[in-house]
């Protein structure tokens, strides 16, 4: 395999991972986010329905569940790979050429990675994992 071919392959591989994350971020945001916003951001605070995060005991019990932790990681972190891409292109559409530069890519996609790491940290340190 020539160096050129190898390089081209590695670039395509990175694209594959990135586009997969971009698409999945869009799906997660589309399928899961509206229900959370409606219930945790509107109906819960208005007291229309009881919501799990309105009370310490129920919220902590839910956050301790490892499946919930995994779910919240997907819910919060994955959309940021979609968000990073869209915001970068939104800036480009408004004539900010710098948004296309390599440093901007590092900032935006690095930001999505950072959100992922912070989310993992918050989920693992806030409430210990419990199976009960």
């Amino acid at each position, binding site marked *: 395999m020539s160096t050129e071919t190898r390089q081209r392959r590695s670039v395509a591989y990175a694209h594959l991972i990135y586009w997969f994350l971009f698409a999945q971020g869009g799906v997660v945001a589309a399928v899961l*986010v509206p229900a959370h916003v409606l*219930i945790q951001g509107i109906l819960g605070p208005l007291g229309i329905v009881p919501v*799990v995060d309105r009370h*310490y005991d129920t919220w902590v019990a839910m956050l301790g569940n490892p499946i919930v932790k995994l779910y919240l990681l997907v819910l919060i972190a994955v959309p940021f790979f979609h968000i990073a891409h869209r915001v970068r292109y939104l800036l480009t559409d408004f004539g900010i050429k710098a948004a296309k530069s390599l440093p901007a890519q590092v900032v935006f996609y690095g930001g999505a990675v950072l959100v992922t790491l912070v989310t993992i940290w918050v989920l693992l340190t806030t409430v210990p994992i419990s199976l009960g």
Partner: protein
Amino acid sequence: MTAEAKAAAPREYPWRIPANWWLRNRHYFLYIAREFTVVPIALWLLWLLVEIKRAGDGRAHYAPHGSTALVVFSVITLLFALYHSYTFLSLAGVIIHVKVLDRPVPSRVIVLAQFALWAVASVVVGFALIWFAR
């Protein structure tokens, strides 16, 4: 540069995009609205992360957010989130091509399946958030 040299130099007419280009046409406006949907969604998800972090405050200090500002912010986010869902899931009919028994599945069916998935997921999420609050 002398005046003579200035006159001789080729003139440049760099094309600059007018700042309000997206307000000139309904399609442009909806496109920008669609791209912008991710901004309130991002902020709301970061709020959710803060709400999770607050569970670490302990029973005595825990107080869930419940201000009018949060509700207003959530209403705005919900409108954008619904627009994102509508546009993103509709797009699936263009992107996804599946064949069943060697026949392509019509894009309408794919879009309907996506919207059905959204409905089911919303019911499950809503049920869990309310059921486990008891």
